[in-house]
């Protein structure tokens, strides 16, 4: 089993491009980078294929642990932190930390590696065209490969600490890539903001790891999850604490309330970066992590409910902001925050498979949408303001059609991918007894359809509002950019065919939930164990299911129609409404002033405190050290007074000394 090479291939690509990339030709750099990812993709496909087969047929090897029931293969590569016994053992560690470098391949990580390497490869190819004229070409691909490697480490890690290595690594690469054009201070600051807000989340994650270690004795994920089922079911308080702290980390990484503020600013980075990191992969790390530790959440219902509530609130909140944005990338950014909220709604009601399914479909259509917007920006000579666009439909046909497909997918129309995943999440929310979450989610869906079609109408329809200069340069993007768009468009259409619940799956295609069942089986078992008193609710009728499907489609249609009404039929209305509702519009456009609130509540006091500490450091600490020097000097000044140069004074000293000795001898 060679699947442990999967993260290492992109890292090798990063090393090559990083060390010698500057002296290589463009072709060489792009070949190394895309080749590394493509190789990782092939290896991922091969590994997943093996996973679908008979696991017992795999021959045993040292360092290889195969669990056929959980359908997981774990491969250890060597000891990282040697504890008492040198292996992640649960009991005999004497409080010493044991961590080994290990990777686990199971259905969940299989989904993730396919998404990461697949979508990642398409985005690498796209970047060839997009970053063609940039002087930092090699540096860009180094960072992109590094990011992919780190993300793969994150999803394949078999220990919390290995996962955390990847977790931090993607945060670092996010910083490097957002602030890629670092000469612009605003862009560099955006990168810093992303990193700092991420770190706040990481703090929660680290405390959770501490709690896990002190209570479970190990950081190996499968062992911890197994122990929950057997020993820890009653320790709800502990599990709730761990769950909430891990979720804090997820909020930081996956941009949920209140730690979402970095993601809109992160649009300062190159658009393929936004597509890869902030749509398809890094921001999904939080969702992956929550799904991975599903037993913790199922055993701690209040933590799980918190996840759901935060997800729902974020989904609605971000959607409202997206309505009033003018920058095409900002709309997509808030849309991402909103859709991530959906994934957490799914996890929050126990429908982990649905959440992960939405993660996958979102990667397809959001990646597509971002790449499409990159194509638009490229054509418009760098313009990102939608109010200056318009009428691009005729001039950018491929971009337009693929973008439209992505929009239809995200709005949730059958039979495109977004419909299946979103519908399943909302249905599960209702089914598990959380009607409010369903309502909030449905509202957010309405807004999603609205603002996405608003974006399409403003950008592609109507007369062009750009200057003559810009209009003359508008051209369709090169093949390296349009082919990935087309591939993603196809995936956005058929992605749903993988099917989630039995009522939808196409004949012969494996069902997604069935595929992920071994991963979430422990969670299901815990749910059963905890519900041993309650009455098992009756299975709802098929009619109710179809009713909800109908509602979802109706909402999507309504949102689309409203967008059509306001931006095609009566385009003068939005401006009038904006001026009439003055304050409300401004609040939405200015993102509820959250950044300003944070600045006043957190940043100013922190900076003030930092300045005070700095003053303390300069005055007191440096003062003490300098004072020691000054003290020595003063002592010298005093001491030199004795050197008068007068012989008689010296003679006097002699006499005094003799007198003293005589006195001493007589008195003694």
């Amino acid at each position, binding site marked *: 089993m060679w699947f442990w090479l999967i993260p290492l291939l992109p890292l090798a690509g990063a090393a090559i491009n990083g060390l010698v990339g500057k002296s290589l030709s463009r072709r060489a750099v792009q070949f190394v980078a895309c080749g590394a990812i493509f190789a990782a993709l092939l290896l991922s496909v091969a590994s997943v294929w093996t996973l679908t087969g008979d696991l017992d047929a795999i021959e045993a090897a040292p360092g290889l642990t195969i669990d056929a029931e959980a359908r997981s293969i774990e491969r250890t590569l060597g000891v990282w932190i040697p504890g008492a016994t040198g292996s992640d053992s649960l009991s005999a560690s004497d409080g010493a930390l044991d961590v080994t470098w290990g990777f686990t391949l199971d259905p969940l990580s299989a989904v993730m590696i396919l998404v990461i390497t697949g979508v990642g490869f398409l985005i690498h190819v796209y970047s060839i065209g997009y970053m063609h004229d940039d002087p930092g070409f090699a540096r860009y691909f180094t960072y992109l490969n590094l990011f992919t490697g780190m993300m793969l480490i994150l999803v394949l890690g078999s220990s919390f600490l290995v996962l955390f290595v990847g977790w931090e690594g993607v945060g670092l690469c996010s910083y490097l890539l957002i602030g890629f054009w670092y000469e612009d201070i605003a862009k560099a600051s955006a990168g810093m903001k992303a990193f700092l807000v991420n770190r706040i989340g990481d703090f929660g994650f680290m405390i959770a790891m501490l709690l896990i270690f002190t209570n479970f004795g190990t950081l190996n994920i499968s062992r911890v999850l197994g122990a929950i089922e057997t020993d820890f079911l009653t320790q709800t308080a502990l599990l709730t604490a761990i769950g909430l702290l891990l979720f804090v980390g997820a909020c930081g990484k996956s941009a949920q309330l209140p730690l979402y503020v970095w993601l809109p600013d992160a649009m300062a980075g190159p658009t393929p970066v936004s597509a890869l990191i902030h749509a398809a992969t890094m921001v999904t790390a939080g969702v992956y992590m929550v799904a991975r530790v599903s037993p913790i959440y199922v055993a701690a219902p209040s933590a799980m409910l918190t996840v759901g509530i935060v997800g729902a609130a974020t989904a609605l909140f971000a959607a409202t902001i997206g309505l009033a944005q003018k920058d095409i990338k900002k709309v997509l950014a808030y849309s991402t925050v909103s859709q991530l909220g959906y994934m957490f709604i799914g996890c929050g009601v126990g429908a982990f498979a649905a959440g992960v399914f939405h993660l996958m479909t979102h990667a397809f259509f959001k990646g597509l949408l971002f790449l499409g917007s990159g194509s638009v920006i490229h054509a418009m000579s760098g313009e990102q303001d939608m109010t200056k666009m318009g009428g691009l439909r005729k001039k950018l046909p491929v971009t337009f059609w693929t973008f439209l497909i992505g929009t239809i997918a995200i709005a949730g129309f059958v039979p495109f991918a977004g419909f299946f995943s979103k519908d399943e999440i909302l249905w599960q929310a209702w089914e598990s007894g959380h009607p409010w979450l369903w309502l909030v989610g449905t509202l957010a869906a309405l807004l999603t359809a609205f603002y996405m079609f608003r974006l399409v109408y403003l950008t592609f329809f109507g007369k062009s509002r750009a200057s003559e200069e810009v209009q003359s340069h508008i051209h369709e993007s090169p093949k390296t950019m349009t082919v990935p768009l087309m591939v993603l468009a196809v995936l956005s259409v058929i992605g749903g065919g993988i099917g989630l619940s039995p009522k939808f799956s196409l004949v012969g295609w494996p069902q997604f939930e069935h595929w992920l069942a071994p991963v979430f089986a422990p969670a299901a078992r815990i749910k059963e164990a905890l519900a041993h008193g309650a009455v098992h609710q009756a299975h709802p009728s098929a009619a109710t299911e179809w009713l909800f499907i109908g509602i979802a489609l109706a909402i999507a249609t309504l949102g689309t129609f409203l967008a059509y009404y306001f931006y095609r039929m009566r385009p003068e209305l939005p401006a009038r409404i904006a001026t009439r509702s003055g304050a409300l519009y401004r609040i939405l456009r200015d993102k509820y002033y959250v950044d300003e609130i944070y600045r006043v509540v957190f940043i100013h006091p922190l900076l003030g405190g930092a300045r005070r500490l700095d003053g303390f450091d300069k005055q007191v600490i440096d003062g003490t050290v300098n004072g020691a020097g000054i003290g020595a000097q003063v002592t010298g000044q005093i001491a030199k007074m004795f050197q*008068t140069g*007068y012989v*008689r004074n010296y003679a006097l000293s002699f*006499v005094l000394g003799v007198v003293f000795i005589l006195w001493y001898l007589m008195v003694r």
Partner: protein
Amino acid sequence: MVATDYYLIVSAVLFTIGVLGVLVRRNAIVMFMSIELMLNAVNLTLVAYARQFGSVEGQVFVFFVMTVAAAEAAVGLAIILAIFRKRRSTDVDDASLMRW
């Protein structure tokens, strides 16, 4: 016979006067005179004890002291002469180049 104590008292007084002379007077020659005075005071002490114990050793030591005093006076006066030729002043306080 006069008690030894009286000789010692005289000697002590002479010595003290000599010390004060060295400390207080500024003229280099007067300082040397005071030093001679101190040495002679010590001579007196030595002779007094020699008489008390009836031994000759004290008196022999006086000879040594006198010799040393003479040699030292010769050398010291030579130095003072050299300095005087340079500075035209016998004031000891003028030789204070070794101050801070």
